[in-house]
C-alpha cells in the first residue's frame, strides 16, 4: 500500500513537472501563451517595442562624457543637439532653428526653438546650451566632443532663445562640430543615469547599467512623436548569443555585427544597416617615436607588406573598400586625391628593401598586439605574419582583452616600439575638418607622430577654408603628407554593419557607426 502511494506521488510529480515544462515552452517572451501563426503575424504588423542587442552595453547616460561607441545608440533617443546630421550627411537644424556668422567667421549666433521642454517638463532655454557647451569645454570633464570645439573661447545667452559663440579661429564647420554635443540638464547631471533628462523623442523608462536601457515615446516631443511603443537596448555577451536571439525573434537589431557573420545573416534574409559615406578605417597603429617605426621607411615598408586583398577576404568577409593610398580619406570620398597618394599595393620586394634601409633586417622579431574585442584583429595579424615571414621577419601575435590591450599604447605619449597594433579608427569624412586634428600639435593620436610645420599649415587650411576647391586642395595635401609619412598604416575603409529583421524600417547609420533607431517603424 505504501509502495503504491509512493509510486502515485512519483507519477503525479512527473506529470506536474511535465506540465510546467509545457507551460514554459508555450510562454512567449511577453508571457502570453503562444498564439496561432495568424495572431503572431497580426502582432508583428502592429507597432511594438523594438529591441536592439549589442555588445558592449551602455554604462552610463551622459552623452557628453560617453566614450563607448556602443553608447551612441542612446544619444538620439534621449537627447537633441543644436544641429543634427541627415542620412545624407548634411547638417540640419535641430534645437537651433537657424544660425548666422559674422564676416570674420569668429562670432556665431544660434536662434533656438521655443517650444521645447525637457522630459521633466522644464522649458529648454539658451542657458542650457551655454552650460552644456561649458561642460564640454572643461578639460577635466573628458568630453570626447571637446576636441571639435577647441576653437570656442566664449559662449553666452543673449536671451532665452539666442546663443552666441565666439571663436579664436574661423571655423566654417562649427554646425557640424555641434552635432554630437547633446543638450542636457547640467545642473542635475549627478542624477542623469536615473532620469535621462533630455529633450529627445524618447523618455527614460528604465536603466540597468551594462544590461538594459528601455525608453518610451516622448508624448510632448517638439518634433514628430515616435510611432513605435518603445525601444530596448539589451547587452549581449557575444555575437553567438546575439545572433541566436535575433534568429529566434527575441531581438530586432544587432548593432555592430562581426564581419565574418554578415554574409550568412544576409543569406538568412536579414537586412544590413550601413552608412552611406563610411569613414571608419581599419589601420595598423605604430609608435612613430620609437625604433623601428620612428623611421618613415619602416612604416612605408609595412604598408607595402600588407596584403590588403587577402586581409579583406579573410578578416572582413570581403566587405569594405581597399585603401591602397593608406590615408584616413576613403577612396570613395569625393575629396579622395588618387594622384597625391603613394600606391601601396602588396609588394614584398619593396617592403624588404625599405625595411633593410630602415635597419629592420632578416631575423628581426616584431609583435602584433591584438585586442580580443573583434575577431578581425587576430586574422589581420595572421595574414601579416605570413607576409613578413616571406621576407625573413618574424611576427609574434598576442591577443589580449580590451583593457590590457589598450593600456599598452593609450593614451598618446606611451612608448611601444616594435608593436604593430591592428585598430579600428572612426574619423569624420572630408570635407569635415576634424580628421586632421588627430595628428600634430593638440592632436591626441597615440601614434606619437611628430608632425612637421607643413602638416600644421595644412591642418590650419583644412579647418578654415570654405570654397570647395580650397577644401579639395587642402585635403589633397593632407593625403599627400600622410601617405608619405604613414603615421598610421591604413588597410581599408569599412563600416561595422548592423543587422535588422526585414520588417523594420526607418533605421540608418551615421558615417561613424552611430545607428539611428528613433525613427524605426514596423513595416
Amino acid at each position: 500500500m505504501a509502495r503504491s502511494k509512493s509510486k502515485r506521488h512519483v507519477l503525479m510529480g512527473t506529470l506536474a513537472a511535465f506540465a510546467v515544462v509545457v507551460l514554459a515552452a508555450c510562454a512567449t517572451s511577453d508571457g502570453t501563451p503562444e498564439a496561432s501563426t495568424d495572431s503572431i503575424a497580426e502582432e508583428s504588423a502592429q507597432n511594438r517595442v523594438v529591441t536592439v542587442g549589442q555588445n558592449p552595453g551602455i554604462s552610463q547616460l551622459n552623452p557628453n562624457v560617453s566614450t563607448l561607441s556602443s553608447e551612441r545608440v542612446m544619444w538620439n533617443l534621449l537627447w537633441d543637439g543644436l544641429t543634427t546630421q541627415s542620412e545624407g550627411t548634411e547638417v540640419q537644424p535641430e534645437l537651433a532653428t537657424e544660425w548666422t556668422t559674422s564676416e570674420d567667421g569668429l562670432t556665431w549666433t544660434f536662434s533656438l526653438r521655443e517650444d521645447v521642454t525637457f522630459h521633466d517638463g522644464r522649458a529648454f532655454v539658451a542657458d542650457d546650451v551655454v552650460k552644456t557647451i561649458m561642460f564640454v569645454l572643461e578639460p577635466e570633464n573628458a568630453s570626447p566632443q571637446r576636441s571639435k570645439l577647441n576653437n570656442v573661447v566664449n559662449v553666452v545667452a543673449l536671451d532665452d532663445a539666442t546663443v552666441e559663440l565666439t571663436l579664436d579661429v574661423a571655423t566654417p564647420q562649427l554646425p557640424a562640430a555641434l552635432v554630437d554635443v547633446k543638450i542636457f540638464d547640467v545642473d542635475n547631471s549627478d542624477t542623469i543615469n536615473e532620469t535621462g533628462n533630455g529633450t529627445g523623442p524618447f523618455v527614460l523608462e528604465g536603466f540597468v547599467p551594462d544590461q538594459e536601457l528601455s525608453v518610451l515615446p516622448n508624448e510632448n516631443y517638439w518634433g514628430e512623436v515616435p510611432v513605435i511603443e518603445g525601444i530596448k537596448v539589451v547587452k549581449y555577451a557575444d555575437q553567438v548569443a546575439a545572433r541566436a536571439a535575433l534568429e529566434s525573434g527575441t531581438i530586432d537589431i544587432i548593432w555592430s555585427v562581426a564581419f565574418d557573420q554578415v554574409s550568412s545573416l544576409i543569406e538568412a534574409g536579414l537586412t544590413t544597416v550601413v552608412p552611406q559615406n563610411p569613414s571608419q578605417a581599419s589601420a595598423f597603429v605604430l609608435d612613430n617615436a620609437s625604433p623601428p617605426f620612428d623611421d618613415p621607411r619602416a612604416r612605408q615598408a609595412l604598408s607595402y607588406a600588407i596584403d590588403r586583398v587577402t586581409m579583406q577576404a579573410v578578416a572582413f568577409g570581403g566587405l569594405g573598400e581597399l585603401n591602397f593610398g593608406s590615408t584616413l580619406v576613403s577612396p570613395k570620398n569625393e575629396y579622395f586625391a588618387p594622384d597625391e597618394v603613394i600606391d601601396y599595393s602588396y609588394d614584398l620586394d619593396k617592403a624588404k628593401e625599405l625595411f633593410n634601409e630602415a635597419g629592420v633586417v632578416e631575423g628581426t622579431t616584431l609583435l602584433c598586439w591584438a585586442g580580443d574585442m573583434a575577431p578581425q584583429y587576430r586574422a589581420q595579424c595572421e595574414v601579416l605574419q605570413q607576409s613578413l615571414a616571406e621576407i625573413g621577419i618574424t611576427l609574434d601575435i598576442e591577443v589580449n582583452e580590451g583593457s590590457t590591450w589598450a593600456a599598452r599604447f593609450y593614451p598618446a605619449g606611451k612608448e611601444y616600439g616594435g608593436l604593430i597594433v591592428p585598430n579600428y579608427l572612426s574619423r569624420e569624412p572630408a570635407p569635415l575638418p576634424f580628421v586632421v586634428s588627430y595628428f600634430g600639435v593638440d592632436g591626441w593620436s597615440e601614434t606619437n607622430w611628430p608632425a612637421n610645420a607643413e602638416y600644421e599649415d595644412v591642418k590650419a587650411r583644412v579647418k578654415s577654408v570654405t570654397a570647395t576647391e580650397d577644401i579639395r586642395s587642402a585635403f589633397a595635401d593632407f593625403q599627400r603628407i600622410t601617405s608619405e609619412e604613414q603615421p598610421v598604416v591604413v588597410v581599408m575603409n569599412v563600416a561595422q554593419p548592423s543587422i535588422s529583421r526585414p520588417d523594420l524600417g526607418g533605421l540608418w547609420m551615421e558615417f561613424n557607426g552611430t545607428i539611428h533607431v528613433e525613427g524605426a517603424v514596423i513595416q
Partner: protein
Amino acid sequence: MLVYVLKRVGSSLLLLALISILIFMALRLLPGDPTTFSLAQGDGVSPEALEKMRRDLGLDQPLLVQYWNWISGVVVGDFGFSYFSNFPVSLLIAQRLPATVTLAGAALALAIAIAVPVAVVPLWLRSVWLERITNVFVALGLATPVFVIGILLVLFFANFLNLFTGSGYAAFTDNPAAALGFLVLPAFTLSLAIAPQLVRYLQGSIRSVAAATFVRTARGKGIGWGRTVSNHIVPNALLPALTSLGITVGSLLGGSVVVEAVFAWPGLGQLVVDAVAKRDYAVIQAIVLLAAAAFVVVTLIVDLLYGVLDPRLRVSTNRARAPRFGDTTITKESSV
C-alpha cells in the same frame, strides 16, 4: 560545541580578510585601470582629465590607503560606487542578485532532481550496465564545458524546435509565465554542469554506505533490497554528500558566469565580467568578496549542520586532548 563554532567562524572571517587582500592586489597587478577603458575610445582626452579622473577615483593614493578606504567601507556595508555608472555598487548588485539567485536556485533544484535518481537507480536495480552507462554520461558531463552545453541547447530547443526562448530575462514578479519560459534553458544548462559532480559524490557515498555492516544486518533480517536502498542506504548516504554542497555552490557561481553570458541573463556573472573588462575595481571587489562570502558561509553552515547531525565531529576538535593508549599512564605518573 561553542568553541567549535567560534573557531569555525573565526577561521572563516580570517579567510575572507585574506581573500579581500588577494582580490584587491590582483586587480592592481592587471595592466590598465578604469581610466584606460575610458580613454581607449575617447577622442582628445587631456592629461588633466586623466589626472582628475584618477584623483576622483582615489587611484593616486598609496595602495594601503586605497585598501583601507575600501575595506573600512565594506565593514559598514558601503561597497563604493561604480566608476562608470556612478551607481552605488550595492544598488548594482541588488539589481542583478534576483536573476542570479533565481538561476542558481532553479539549477540546484534541477541538478538534485537529476543527480539523485541517476545515482540511486543503478544501485536499486543492481544493474552494472546501467551504472556503466551512467558513468559514461557523468564523465561526458564533467568534461563538456558549460558554454558548449548552453549553445547546443539553444540551437536545438530554441532555434530548431522553437520550444523555448533562447535568451532574455523576465522577473517572476512581473510576468511568471515569461519568466519561466526564459528560465528553462539556462537553468537546465547550469544544472547539467553541476549534476555530474553531485552524481559522483552520491555514488561514492552510496558505495561506502552500501558496504556498511548495518546494511548487511538489514538484509540478514530479511528486508527487501528496494526497502534497504530507500530506507537505509540513501538516507545515510545523503548525509556525507552534504559536504559537497559548499563545492557545488562554488561551481554554481562559476558556472552561472558562463551561463549568464550565453543566455544574456542579467545576473551578477555578467556584471562582474563587464566590470573586469573595464577594470571597475569597486564592482569587481564587492562581487568577488560576496561570492567568496557565500561560499564560506555555505561551507560553514554545512560544517555546523554536519556537526549537529554527526556528534563524532563535535568532539573531534578535542582529539588532541582525548585519552590515548599510553597517555593515561604518563598523566598518572606526572600527577603522582
